[in-house]
């Protein structure tokens, strides 16, 4: 079988101390062994020279939209996985808002099968909480879990009825499935297209108040506290929601949360000029909320970085600002942003970066044998060059869509190779 030796890299496995000049042997899709700088290396294998590079357990994006089945003009599982591995992600977790909705085991299995055929990234689907994500009857969570789903969510159509959400949490707990909520009380946000605040007043665009996110987050945390379920708050973006998570964690509630690169990088000022690639939900918030996001990343309240990669065809985005769909692509820019905005600005160190992109996502979704480099684990590896200077161009994207606000932005730091199941699937 294939053997790959990654030589002389700087291994970052938060479970063990940092290790410079180490080599790691991958065999049969698993991590076989580590070798110290002075140890004899095996010779009957392919060599990847990682001198000067960081070798990390494979990055796992907990929140993407791959659009297949049903919206293949935006993205396919193959094109989304190609963008993922080019961005350093070895695994992606697609949300269920496909057409039809991933609310049953057949669609879950189909997504995994399409990913297997593409042979790039691992795909761990997220099933719907309710049938058709319409908020009324529970979807077959047990069957979806058996088919390979790792969590449940109605994502952009959050369950509005607290009674249904309470039962969903009680039921999901039976299957040890985390419940993910895109927190948005639509009675407060409906019709809104950007963060409600001084900039929305200035631009004459209808705002979505921070409260819409915060009220839902507080509701979910209280429900999780009572039911004992694991609630994972998707893409937190407001000071109040982050504070609510911080306090809930201190009380021992089983709550985790993720943040997107655009929410730790941009503010609502980016909307001036009415570029529809600045429109997403939750919206880009004000600088004060962004500062709260940074503080939450720094103090550990925020567990993970996830892209909320949401491809839309150029024709769909070439509309009036208030008619264009919500969402931006993010798989290929996330690591560049994490290095440039977090690591190089001293918000987090490299160990914490690996925790947020790999260790914690694996823990939150119970992905055994991932998020670690220890021998016996899956040979999913992200190789990083923290000093590489590069520029992202929408035109070069592997995604089928081009809706990123970061077109032309330069970064310091990138994923330079992505290894999935012991196979190099991307090399810059």
């Amino acid at each position, binding site marked *: 079988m294939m053997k790959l030796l990654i030589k002389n890299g700087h291994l970052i496995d938060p479970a063990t101390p940092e290790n410079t000049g180490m080599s790691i042997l991958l065999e049969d899709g698993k991590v076989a062994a580590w070798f110290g700088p002075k140890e004899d290396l095996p010779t009957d294998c392919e060599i990847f020279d990682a001198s000067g590079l960081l070798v990390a357990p494979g990055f796992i994006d907990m929140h993407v939209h791959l659009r297949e089945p049903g919206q293949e003009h935006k993205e396919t599982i193959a094109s989304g996985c190609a963008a993922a591995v080019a961005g350093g992600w070895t695994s992606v977790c697609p949300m269920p808002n496909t057409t039809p909705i991933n609310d049953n085991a057949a669609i879950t299995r189909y997504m995994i099968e399409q990913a297997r055929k593409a042979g790039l990234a691992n795909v761990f689907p997220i099933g719907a909480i309710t049938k058709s994500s319409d908020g009324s009857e529970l979807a077959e969570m047990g069957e979806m879990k058996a088919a390979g789903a790792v969590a449940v969510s109605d994502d952009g159509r959050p369950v509005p009825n607290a009674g249904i959400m309470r039962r969903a949490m009680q039921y999901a707990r039976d299957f040890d499935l985390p419940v993910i909520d895109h927190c948005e009380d639509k009675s407060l946000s409906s019709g809104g297209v950007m963060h409600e*605040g*001084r*900039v929305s*007043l*200035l*631009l*004459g*665009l*209808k705002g979505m108040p*921070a*409260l819409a996110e*915060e009220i839902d987050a*507080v509701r979910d945390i209280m429900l999780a506290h009572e039911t004992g379920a694991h609630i994972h708050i998707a893409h937190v973006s*407001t*000071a*109040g929601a*982050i*504070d*609510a998570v*911080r*306090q809930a964690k201190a009380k021992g509630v089983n709550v985790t949360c993720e943040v997107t690169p655009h929410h730790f990088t941009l503010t609502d000022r980016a909307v001036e*000029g*009415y570029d529809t690639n600045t429109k997403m939900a939750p919206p880009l918030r*004000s*600088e*004060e*909320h962004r500062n*709260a996001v940074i503080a939450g990343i720094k103090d550990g309240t925020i567990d993970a970085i996830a892209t909320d990669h949401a491809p839309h065809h150029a*024709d769909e985005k*070439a*509309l*009036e*600002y*208030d*008619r264009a769909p919500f969402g931006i692509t993010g798989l290929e820019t996330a690591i560049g942003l994490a290095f440039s905005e977090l690591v190089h600005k001293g918000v987090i160190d490299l160990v914490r970066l690996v925790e947020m992109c790999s260790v914690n996502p694996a823990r939150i979704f119970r992905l055994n044998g991932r998020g670690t480099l220890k021998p016996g684990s899956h040979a999913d590896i992200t190789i990083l060059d923290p000093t590489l200077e590069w520029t992202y161009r929408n035109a070069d994207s592997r995604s089928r869509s081009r809706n990123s606000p970061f077109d032309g932005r330069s970064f310091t730091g990138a994923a330079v190779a992505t290894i999935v199941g012991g196979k190099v699937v991307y090399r810059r």
Partner: protein
Amino acid sequence: MEKPFRRRDLLGIRDLTAAEITGILDTAETFGEISTREVKKVPALRGKTIINLFFEASTRTRTSFELAAKRLSADAVNISVASSSLSKGETLVDTAMNLDAMAPDCIVVRHSSAGVPHQLAKVSKAAIVNAGDGANEHPTQALLDAMTIREHKGQIEGLEVAILGDILHSRVARSNIHLLTKLGARVRVAGPRTLVPKDFKYLVAAGGNPSGSEDVRRGISHPSDTLPTGRVSASAARDPQLEVSDHIEEAIHGADVVMILRIQRERQDSAYFPTLREYAIHYGLTNERLDLAKKDAIVLHPGPMNRGIEIASDVADSSRSLILDQVKYGVAVRMAVLYLATGGQPTSE
């Protein structure tokens, strides 16, 4: 070095300097005389093509732009599109590029969505003039209001102006706030709290840059009534150019100019206020309320008026009301804007 084709968009008042605004107003004054002639036509824009692209119903503004173009001898084409480009299966960008391919010199656009003129300006070779975009701006309305005020008050600087009504949804209010504060007036806005967010006071801080901090809630364990820590520029703190008044009476008190905004019935359906009747009683401009203003105060309304609702009929018909003057000056202002947008030079004082 003079370029062969000088394109100047008018997307909003927010982007203009006080000198540019004054230049447009001075140019409008010289054009105003043309409409009083027996033959109301000059050849200034002969050979120029102007497209009036209206995605939203309009009688007054569209007619005003059309007359302005014709009195300058431009060829004007009116296009009324039901609503969005989307309804025709075409994207907004497609629509703009198709029209642009016909080589107009200027496209005048009105749309119910904020930002459409800015989006068109990015893809169009023609100059884009904003004739009203959603709740964002209506720059020619603010210019004609300013011209009306200048004609009756001599100058804008130092005046106290009350703007009353649905500020939240009003492009007229936004353009007027930018224009009046840039020219040195002091503006007070007031209306139902649901339609006049307190944060409006930051609209012109640092020249249209809402600087400083937003009032961010600090989670459920902290009181949510912490005061905003917003920085307002030092001069603004001493002498705020823009204030949000608690009551409309407070805003009207001592005003030189009272500007009334049209109230839309649909706001009632969205629970911004209970009934038009209650709105008229508590927020309408009556003679009693107008008595709080300066004796020589003037009343403006962008039209069309809801008589007996936001403005009492006797106020609308009084000599203090300059509503028809506004309409008259609208043609002159639009002549000036079209002339400047297609390459003309402003009149200097």
